[in-house]
């Protein structure tokens, strides 16, 4: 919005000009959406690098205004955007979105997702007993991420751990559903 247009709409009162007052909302909008995306796709951001990630989400937010009543659902559009852009980072973003679904959705609902993704439901053998025990107790992706970083795990190990965790959750759900 141009300054002239702002002055036609907004009452001009100190301590801010009409344009500065509108800017409070403009900045808050971008800040709110980018914070949510940064929180949900921390691993994708790490892989892309901070500068590129910032540019990518800026373009995404510009091209894809939210149509959701719950901001938590907006992240799924970011995965679709990366597919459209043929981004090499789509797989890791897709993985992170699946993790979010695991965190947000009940096990029954997650089973519905898993049932459509047979590769997720494969049973696995975890050789790292310490990691296995931690994963069985962890409540969130952030907890796991912090723990892995504190253990100085490398990024490749981190990625494979995530896949294992998804599979582990999937197995739990599948086993429960068979009872």
């Amino acid at each position: 919005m141009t300054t002239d247009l702002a002055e036609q709409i907004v009452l001009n009162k100190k301590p801010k000009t009409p344009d500065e007052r509108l800017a409070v909302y403009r900045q808050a909008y971008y800040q709110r959406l980018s914070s949510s995306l940064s929180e949900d796709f921390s691993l994708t951001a790490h892989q892309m690098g901070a500068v590129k990630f910032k540019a990518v989400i800026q373009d995404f937010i510009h091209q894809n205004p939210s149509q959701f009543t719950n901001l938590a659902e907006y992240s799924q559009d970011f995965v679709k955007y990366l597919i459209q852009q043929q981004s090499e980072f789509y797989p890791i973003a897709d993985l992170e979105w699946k993790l979010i679904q695991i965190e947000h959705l009940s096990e029954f609902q997650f089973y519905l997702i898993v049932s459509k993704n047979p590769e997720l439901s494969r049973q696995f053998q975890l050789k790292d007993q310490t990691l296995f025990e931690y994963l069985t107790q962890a409540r969130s992706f952030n907890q796991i991420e912090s723990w892995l970083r504190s253990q100085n795990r490398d990024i490749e190990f981190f990625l494979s751990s995530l896949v294992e965790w998804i599979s582990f959750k999937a197995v739990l759900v599948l086993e429960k559903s068979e009872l």
Partner: protein
Amino acid sequence: MSPLKKDLGVGVGLRSAHHAEFMNNHIESVNWIEVTTENFMPWESGYWPESIQTLLKIREKFPVALHGVSMNIGSVDAVNYDYLKRLKLLIQRLEPMIVSDHLSWTGINGLNMHDLLPIPYTREALNHIIRKISEVQDYLGMNILIENPSSYFEFLKSEMSEADFLNQIVKSTGCGLLLDINNVYVSSVNHQFDPIKYLEQIQFSNVHQIHLAGHSNEDGFLIDTHDQDVSKSVWQLYEWVVQKNGHIHTMIERDGRIPDWCEMKVELKKIGAIHEKYSQRSRKDSITDTGISSK
């Protein structure tokens, strides 16, 4: 919704940081809780969020108020029936004591800014919002509360004060008011008006809940961030309201830099202390007479 028959006392905006505390411990510092509606509604894909299970367990111990941020009541868009359908499912599951949202708009053409945007206080906007609130209440089969917003600009074309606008909405729709005293203070500083004069214009018999919260100060301009303790000025305004009108259930909202529960309790105790100080003016009895009626 059943009419509110008594002052339920002190409440809190329950956030996930305190879920474990409420699940595992006996909480004496609050009598009721409020949660953000959208965090517990079914998603647009139809999935219920896992968090509803936690809330249903806490609901066994505390009455719950639902406070929404996306009803978009001030938008020129038509009422969003997909949203209302999901809200109604949550209401049926949770049986909340109060359902509320804001005097604001959040988007147009189906888009959502995820922010509470201000409204021009014109006759045209008033009639439009009255129609929308009536439509919402008819669909939900209950009356809702509407909260006064904080804002960072006012419209040149506004024809009446915010308090007048709210009073007329209540008169025409039968909805109640959720009075956010921090919002009154934030707007009063940003738009340079007297908050006491604003509060004097509000018909307190229509107020069925009070919010307190903290704000950030950016070079004399206030932002409604909910990430600070309630400011001294807001406590003073709250005390003025209680002294003049008696007390009604009041809660604190905290959405950023959320302290641990022990620290939160200290601030919540201040509400009880003010209620105690002016206990002779409790609205306990009068609420029955002026309560929001069921549809």
